[in-house]
């Protein structure tokens, strides 16, 4: 029974020594995988915590799942990027305010050999039509994330429904995060739609390069959504509001704009956000 006693003592020690259990001033942020795996949140959250004393615990899930987590009452605030799904969330009465905090753009990446010959253009819909016509392999997130929703909207414009795509052999639905999709695209020499933030900070690109960028339809906006107190009375709404206010404040916006990975800027503060009409490709803005 010596082993048992040791196990017990160690277990108690480690569990008690974990400061997270005692943290009171903390909120749960349900967010997309892109703001987490691009390193943005890890970079800006310490600045917020230092100023406010509030710890932000990030659960990175993809927009569809994140919205669902908040619906169930398991999150205090949201940072997501699927305008249509967000609107539905607001219409259902789950959210109180929704504010744009950052933007960047989606890109279509593919193997440098470019089997579909789409590289260099900026019309994402024509590119997808060409990929479908040449049956070049394409990886879909297939996880109801904001990027997945954007991808399916583009396919719709290209005359393809999700149901029809699911039957195609060249179209692979991997049901995973952005990084998994990029890993798969890299391994299978396939095209995929990526958010620019994850792409720039991704370290297993292999032969993948950007094929299409700079299309106004590829605009990617990130919103912070505060929850409706009538539906989510037990959420930590006050601390959540402090965080949301900070994100859109000059301090928060500056922090978002200042973040770089591999020497490149990943997100633009929303103050500089273009409308779709006046959209300028991000690579022009980043010098």
């Amino acid at each position, binding site marked *: 029974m010596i082993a048992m006693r040791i196990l*017990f003592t160690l277990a108690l020690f*480690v569990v008690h020594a974990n400061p997270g259990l005692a943290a009171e001033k903390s909120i749960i942020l349900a967010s997309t995988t892109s703001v987490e*795996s691009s390193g943005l949140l890890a970079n800006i959250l310490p600045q917020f915590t230092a100023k406010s004393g509030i710890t932000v615990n990030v659960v990175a899930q993809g927009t569809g799942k994140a919205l669902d987590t908040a619906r169930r009452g398991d999150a205090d605030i949201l940072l997501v990027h699927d305008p249509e799904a967000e609107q539905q969330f607001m219409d259902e009465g789950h959210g109180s305010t929704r504010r744009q905090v950052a933007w960047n753009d989606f890109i279509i990446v593919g193997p440098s050999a470019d089997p579909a010959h789409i590289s260099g253009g900026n019309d994402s819909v024509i590119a997808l039509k060409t990929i479908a016509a040449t049956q070049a392999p394409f990886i879909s997130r297939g996880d109801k994330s904001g990027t997945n929703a954007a991808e399916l909207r583009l396919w719709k414009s290209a005359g393809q429904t999700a149901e029809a795509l699911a039957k195609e052999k060249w179209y692979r639905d991997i049901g995973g995060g952005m990084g998994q999709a990029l890993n798969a695209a890299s391994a299978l020499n396939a095209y995929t739609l990526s958010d620019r933030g994850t792409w720039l900070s991704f370290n297993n690109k292999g032969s993948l390069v950007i094929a299409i960028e700079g299309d106004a339809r590829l605009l990617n906006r990130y919103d912070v959504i505060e929850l409706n107190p009538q539906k989510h009375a037990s959420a930590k709404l006050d601390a959540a509001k402090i965080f949301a206010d900070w994100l859109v404040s000059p301090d928060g916006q500056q922090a978002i704009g200042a973040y770089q990975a591999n020497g490149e800027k990943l997100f633009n503060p929303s103050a500089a956000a273009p409308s779709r009409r006046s959209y300028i490709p991000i690579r022009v803005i980043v010098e």
Partner: protein
Amino acid sequence: MNEFIGIVGLSIGISLAATFFAATIGLPLGAALAIFAFRGRRAIVVLTNAFFGLPPVVVGLVLYLALSHSGPIGFLHLLFTPAAMIIAQTLLAAPIITALVHRASERAWARYGDELTNDGASRLQSMPQILAIIRAELLTAILAGFGRTVSEVGAVILVGGNIRGLTRTMTTTIALQTSQGDLQLALALGAVLVGISISISATVFALAGTAKSAGSDEI
């Protein structure tokens, strides 16, 4: 580096706690299943053996729904905390420990059962003795339970949420690093995980050896 130590510490802490609770359930239950004859015993034995292969992601999902704010025990506010991860891992390890203890106890009971109850001792009183007889197997059972908890990712990522500095363990970090394309870092962490598992196993066996040579194993 501090973050790394925190992640390793949390992984081991959670797994040890879960193994402890699973052993607290599994040791008496496994022995009782061998010693006592009661209705439904066979069903429990079959179930514990079947739950050997309980998919972690299923345990994670069921626990997620239960602990969710809109679930039956949501009021406990345990979702996305280390406590939720300990519960998940306990559920995964308990059947393994129970089944292994049961098998060893069954053999010991067949051999020593009459002897132990001869002098008027009740079956309940002979339980600790049975456990003492099979203590070498107990070690294996507990280590198997620990191995299950420290290595799984499906359940802890669902109920823990992989929150940096709070519920991020070695396995969830490996999943995250892989998703960021940092395959080498992920692999290095994997090697650390394997190394830690080996060291813990070796340490426990060394301790058991010490106990044996001190003569504590005589019945």
